[in-house]
């Protein structure tokens, strides 16, 4: 099982050449200066932004190919993203947020609920289960966003600066939680970070864009 992206990514006129293959069990760290296209790469893999040229495939199945006019919609790719700005659904409870990916994939409500609780427990956020996402602190929201992504049981986990918006103490704590999650994750993981410590402690190898 591997993810391969070869071609050009970008939004508007800014294009970035890319050629990368990531195997299952690997955590590819992605570094690079601001605006170089790290987030765009994540969005391209998740199916939010189309590839400009080339192809993107996972496990032998083409997800996006500009020349062949192949494009699989986000629900047809088993990806989950932790966005840099988290993007929890503010009107929903923590539990509903974490259940979202599972419910999107047609999992029954009861099963989704128990899986969501388990994942919240995994990131030490079980106590937040009934809280509204809107009132969470930075560290709490970060944990919930992580739980929401892994609860969807994706084949490709995309982490866009998952530790950037929290204070130093919480960051250390969450880094160790993330290390546990990633070591147990069987699929392909990509981790964008500006912090060398995140990349050395969490990624198995690093790609620098730009």
């Amino acid at each position, binding site marked *: 099982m591997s993810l391969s992206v070869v071609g050009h990514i970008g939004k508007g006129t800014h294009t970035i050449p890319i050629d990368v293959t990531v195997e299952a069990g690997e955590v590819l760290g992605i570094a690079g200066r601001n605006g170089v296209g790290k987030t765009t790469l994540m969005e391209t893999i998740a199916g*939010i932004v189309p590839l400009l040229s080339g192809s993107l495939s996972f496990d032998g199945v083409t997800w996006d190919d500009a020349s062949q006019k192949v494009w699989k919609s986000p*629900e047809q790719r088993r990806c989950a*993203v932790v966005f840099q700005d988290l*993007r929890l659904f503010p*009107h929903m409870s923590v539990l509903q947020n974490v259940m*979202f990916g599972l419910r999107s*994939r047609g999992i029954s409500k009861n099963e989704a609920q128990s899986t969501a609780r388990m994942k919240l427990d995994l990131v030490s956020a079980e106590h937040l289960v009934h809280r509204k996402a809107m009132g969470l602190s930075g560290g709490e929201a970060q944990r919930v966003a992580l739980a929401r992504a892994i609860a969807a049981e994706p084949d490709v986990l995309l982490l866009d600066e998952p530790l950037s918006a929290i204070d130093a103490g919480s960051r250390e704590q969450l880094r160790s939680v993330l290390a546990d999650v990633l070591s147990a994750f069987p699929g392909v993981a990509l981790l964008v970070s500006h912090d060398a410590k995140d990349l050395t402690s969490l990624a198995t190898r690093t790609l620098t864009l730009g």
Partner: protein
Amino acid sequence: MKLLPVSDTEVSPRILKVSRGTADKVFRGVVLAGAMFSVAVLGLICAFLLYRGFEIFKDFGFSFFTSSRWEAAADDGSSPAHYGVAAMLVGSIVVATIAVVLAVPFAMSVALYLEYYAPQFLKRTLVSILDLVASIPSVIWGIWGYTILMPHAMGWSKTLNHWLGWIPIFKVPVPIFERSPFIAGTLLAMMILPIITSVTREVYSQAPRDQVDAAYGLGSTKWGAIKTVVLPFGKSGLVGGTMLGLGRALGETIAVYLVLNLVFKVNFHILASVGGNVASMIATKFGEAGPYELKALMAAGLVLFLLTLGVNFLASAIVNRSKKIA
């Protein structure tokens, strides 16, 4: 760095005294005058209607709202005048409710289609058509409703009565299906569809793109993203648009006059040829009314005015509440 102790009195809120420039003062005065002018017009209309209709409220009291009789005094003085707006008030609410119930699901679907599914060229064309539909005069709607819609709607009424006649509102005491509240409501639904669609589409277009992408980023379908992000976000806009439509439906005169039988009887059987609303009743009676009946029509006008005002206040309250929840 050493932090100084701060007493409670030192942290009480400051009252700022702002010294504004002349241009700012003039602009402030102009916009204040504009805002006050609309409030004054509203107040004057209300005062005028109350002044002209006061005698009726004094003579009939609460029965003006509860009675369905609308009878001028006999010329020979054998029977006194009796005026009550209950039937027309109920008629206004029934017809407007039918219009809203039929229009809202369509308006939501059209707004979502235009904003999230339609290709650009089709979106532009459909938006222009909707704007055009919104500008069609009521009398044209009325004529179209009478000549084209009614013959078809009578067939739909018969079908509804045949299959759902066991539900009280679909019962018909006498099998006459023309000029019913259902037909008037259907026509009004078409008339208010553009305004509800337009407001709803505008709000849906402002749904936070990053939240929609977050839904996609977790493997959601487009409908899943719409259900999770766009619909909750656009709830207040939908309510606002609906209330605007309801306001128009409550006050619609000429179109309703052409497709609804004016009968002074409280009627909840929407397929029956019995009904009327306050606005069309005023239009019907105004030309032939004597001085005392004219006062009764002014009082009815005030009731309609306050009802519409109430709906708008309710809309503002609902919109504010859903904004707070969102």
